[in-house]
Structures are given as structure tokens and as C-alpha cells.
């Protein structure tokens, strides 16, 4: 623990400007070369890197505290339970939930949305009902609802977007009606970077008494989130996109809704009593956490949030914003490059295509220079169809990225164009 406290205090004093080198020193994975070049990691929207303090917290758990939670009277089980529930308290403060029991631990945003689909959707949505999603959803916020509609005979409606990648809210208004039973919208688009006006979207849905699911996978890492201020009914995010290990994540739900929902999975830890005739389910949050969870990963999520709080989230967001602005400016000046997603409000994602060059070829050439980006449809094929492109190349930033890395990206893109000219 001593080392953890020490490294935390090392970053505690607020810096006048963003000291990116000091921040980078917290991330061991960034200290490597790829193909003989310093690693330039610009695939943060797919998965972000893990700081030393989070690695150490996970190791400490495995070295000193590991046991199963919620079921042992012995010392280690109590230690593990305390650490796991402590992470839940940290999450509660992070998103400003009213109570920690509203924060259900899941494998990631995908599992969170599937939990709502199964627990809420299957119970409260029926034939003829309508579910509204948006044109810029990740497959994780399309497919579960499609499956539900198929099963129940409900109808999926889609809020369209303009060529900049902004949702058309007038069209949304036109879709809302008394048949609408759920709205599920992403906070920030993973393929376009658009920040959606979710507070407004939620308010409009609530006029019809319709609950709203927010996919927060791309917003939680980049902006403060206050679920009470948003008044969202559900909010899902993934730990591995917010500097924690894979296998961690959260679905927040308003207690009143979670309580009237069906459980998600059945098994150990989610029950009060079991007989062959009848099972009574546990109270929140255990009702939704069947089986042994990813204890080390969720404790890591708590540590990652602690880390974010120590470095200063607002300053981190400002730095990311400046990187996005700079990268947009640099890439806009390269002839043949077209940026996909030009919304006024954007966060951290820069999707682009190059005339006559397939994104996978861009990705391979960038990789040779040690630059990691994502090339493909970004699990958002309808977005690609909307823009009539097979795929994009996507650079996505975190607060540990630098302007020099953006320069490396821009220079190598020029090289790509040269090779294919």
C-alpha cells in the first residue's frame, strides 16, 4: 500500500499547465517502441491504458486480499468484500448516484445494456411498443434492442442525423409517442466523436414517462458525468475505456426501476433463499450480480477513478480537447483527407478517410511507424452506411497523448498518400 500512496501523492499537486510527460510516466505500457519507433497509442476509444497505481492495486489485491466476496466469515473474504464494495462507493461518487446500490457491476457497457434489455425490456415491453435509438449507436446499443423487438413484436425507431453527425432532435420529437416505451442513446459517438445533448433527450422522453438508457462508454472517460443532473434512468460504462482492466464496468439504474426489474442472470449471490419450489431474490445491488464477479478488475476500476480524481479531470479534458482541435486542424490541411463527423460538440475521436486508400492500408502503414489507430467499422456499421463508406480510420485521444504524437500521425498520413499516389 505504501507504494500506491506514494505514487498517488506524486501527482497530487496541481500543475499550472498540463504536464503531459509527468502523466505519461504513470503509464508503463507507453514506455515501449513498436517497429523501432516510440509507441504512439491513439486507440483509446477502443481501450485505454492502465496507470501504474491501478496495476499495483490489482496486484495488491491478488497478493494480499484475494478471496471470494460476500460469503466468508474469514479475514480474507472480509478484506476482499470491503475492497469490492469500496470500489462501488467510488463509482457512486464518480457518477453522483444517490446510492451505491444503484451501481451494478458488470463486465462492461455491453453487458450493462443487455442487463437492462433482459431485466427491464423483457418485462415491460410488449407487442406494438416502440423503442427509440439513434443513428449513431454502437452495435451494443442496437442489437440487444433489435433482439427484444424481434422477440416481443415491438418496433425499433431510429433518430436520424445530419451530415455533420448531429442528431436531428425535431425528428426525435416526431418519433416520441404514447407507444414509446424506452429510449436508448449514446452520450458520445465512438465512430464520430459527437457529444449528444443527452440531458435534453432525456427531458423530452420523460414528458412521455419514458425511461432513458445512456450508453456512456465514450463519455465516462472524457467528461464529468452526473446521473442525477442528467436524470437518466440507466447509464452504462466500461472500465477498460477508463484506465481500468477489462472485465470491469457499471450499469447505473434508478433504484425504483432496478427494484421492479427481473434479475439478469440467476445463480449464487443474487438470492435471499432458494428452495426447489421458490427462490427469493437478493436486494440491490446483489440481485443483478449472480456468480463471482471480476473482483480484481472492479477494484481496479475504483483505483482508476481515484487516479482520475488526483490528476484533475477538468484539466485532463481540456488537454484532450486541445489535442482534438489540433489534430482536426492538422488533418484538415492534408489534401485527400476527409474527416467523418464534424459536429460542433465533439470529444476525443477523430474519424477520417483518405481518397482511394482503404482504412486498413492506412492502419498497416501507421502501425509500421508505431502508431496505433483503429481501422474498420468501429462496431457501428449503420454509421458507415449513413456516410456511404465501408470503414474509417479513427484516432482517439487520451490525456496522456501529446501534440508531437498528433504530428507523427499527420506526417505518416502524408506518407500514406505518397505511397498510394
Amino acid at each position, binding site marked *: 500500500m505504501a507504494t500506491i500512496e506514494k505514487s498517488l501523492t506524486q501527482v497530487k499537486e496541481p500543475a499550472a499547465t498540463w504536464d503531459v510527460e509527468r502523466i505519461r510516466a504513470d503509464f508503463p505500457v507507453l514506455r515501449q517502441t513498436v517497429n523501432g519507433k516510440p509507441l504512439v497509442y491513439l486507440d483509446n476509444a477502443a481501450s485505454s491504458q492502465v496507470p501504474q497505481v491501478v496495476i499495483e492495486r490489482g496486484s495488491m489485491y491478488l497478493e494480499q486480499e484475494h478471496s471470494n466476496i460476500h460469503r466468508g466469515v474469514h479475514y480474507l473474504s472480509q478484506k476482499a468484500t470491503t475492497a469490492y464494495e469500496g470500489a462501488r462507493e467510488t463509482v457512486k461518487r464518480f457518477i453522483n448516484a444517490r446510492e451505491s446500490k444503484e451501481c451494478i457491476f458488470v463486465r462492461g457497457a455491453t453487458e450493462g445494456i443487455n442487463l437492462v434489455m433482459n431485466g427491464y425490456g423483457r418485462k415491460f415491453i410488449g407487442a406494438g411498443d416502440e423503442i427509440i435509438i439513434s443513428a449513431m449507436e454502437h452495435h451494443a446499443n442496437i442489437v440487444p434492442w433489435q433482439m427484444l423487438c424481434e422477440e416481443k413484436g415491438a418496433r425499433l425507431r431510429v433518430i436520424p442525423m445530419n451530415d455533420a453527425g448531429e442528431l436531428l432532435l425535431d425528428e426525435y420529437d416526431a418519433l416520441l409517442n404514447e407507444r414509446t416505451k424506452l429510449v436508448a442513446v449514446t452520450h458520445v459517438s465512438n465512430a464520430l466523436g459527437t457529444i449528444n445533448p443527452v440531458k435534453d433527450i432525456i427531458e423530452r422522453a420523460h414528458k412521455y414517462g419514458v425511461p432513458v438508457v445512456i450508453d456512456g462508454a465514450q463519455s465516462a472517460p472524457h467528461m464529468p458525468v452526473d446521473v442525477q443532473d442528467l436524470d437518466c434512468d440507466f447509464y452504462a460504462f466500461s472500465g477498460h475505456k477508463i484506465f481500468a482492466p477489462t472485465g470491469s464496468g457499471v450499469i447505473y439504474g434508478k433504484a425504483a426501476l432496478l427494484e421492479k426489474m427481473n434479475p439478469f442472470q440467476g445463480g449464487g449471490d443474487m438470492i435471499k433463499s432458494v428452495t426447489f419450489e421458490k427462490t427469493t431474490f437478493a436486494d440491490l445491488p446483489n440481485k443483478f450480480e449472480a456468480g463471482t464477479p471480476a473482483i480484481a478488475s472492479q477494484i481496479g476500476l475504483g483505483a482508476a477513478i481515484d487516479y482520475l480524481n488526483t490528476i484533475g479531470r477538468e484539466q485532463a479534458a481540456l488537454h484532450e480537447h486541445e489535442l482534438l482541435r489540433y489534430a482536426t486542424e492538422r488533418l484538415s490541411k492534408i489534401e485527400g483527407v476527409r474527416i467523418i463527423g464534424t459536429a460542433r460538440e465533439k470529444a476525443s475521436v477523430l474519424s477520417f478517410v483518405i481518397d482511394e486508400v482503404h482504412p486498413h492500408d492506412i492502419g498497416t502503414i501507421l502501425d509500421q511507424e508505431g502508431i496505433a489507430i483503429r481501422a*474498420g467499422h468501429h462496431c457501428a456499421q449503420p454509421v458507415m452506411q449513413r456516410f456511404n463508406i465501408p*470503414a474509417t480510420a479513427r484516432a482517439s485521444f487520451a490525456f496522456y497523448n501529446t501534440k508531437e504524437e498528433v504530428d507523427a500521425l499527420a506526417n505518416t498520413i502524408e506518407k500514406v498518400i505518397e*505511397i498510394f499516389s
Partner: protein
Amino acid sequence: MSELSELYQQVILDHNKKPRNFRKLEGANHSAEGYNPLCGDHLTVYLQLEDDAVKDVSFEGSGCAISKAAASMMTQAVKGKTKPEVEQLFQEFHTMVMGDPEEELAPNQLGNLTIFAGVREFPVRVKCATLSWHTMHAALNNQELVSTE
């Protein structure tokens, strides 16, 4: 950048820009669709088989430079060949791109297709180079759809 220039040789870039036999084949009696769900590459191979030989062949679709050039050069290589000869080329091509980049190429009938040996340095791009060949194999064997996954 030497491995890169091995991968993106002028011939490959040229076939990417101006793919040969890039059209729907009227009079095709065999065809198959190939799909790589991971990257979205998608192509259709058309064959006109007569007496077990490839009288004509074409393809259409979209994909990266490697997959497009591989398809384009494949159509040139298999035209006029018998079915067993095409299957033999497919095997040799497959063995080549899956091979160890440190080793010499085994003797083969691949001719200018050996240009794709550069793909060995890029394991994630092997599927791009073989998609059209798998699709050709499917078309020859009367399968309609083939997926890399």
C-alpha cells in the same frame, strides 16, 4: 519502411488502382461471395467453367489494396487453368502467405503471385490476401458464401 515497400509494391498498388477483370461476368455459371466480417471486405467471384476449365473469370466488390490486388491478380492467374490447377495454385498461395518470412519460398507455380510473399510479415493482413482465393475455391465447389471468420 522496407517491410512496407515489400507489402505495397508498385504492382500491387497498380492492381489496386486499376483492378483487372473487375466487373460482373455475363455468362458466369459459377459464383461465390466472400466476406471478412472483421474488416468489412466483401467481394464476389464469377466463373465461367467449361469442361472443368476456367474459360473466363471476374470479380467485383470492395476492400483494401491487398485484397483488391490479390483478387485482380488471381483472376489473371487462373484464366485458362483447369480446376485441379486452380486448386493447386490456391494451395501454394495459401502456403506462401502463411509461411515463415525468414524462410526461402518453396518451389511453386505461382509466378508473379509471389509478390504477395511480403504479406508474411503482416499476419493480420493474410486474410486480405486470401479472401479472393477462398471465394474462388467456394465458387469452384458450388458454395455460395464464404466468410473468413
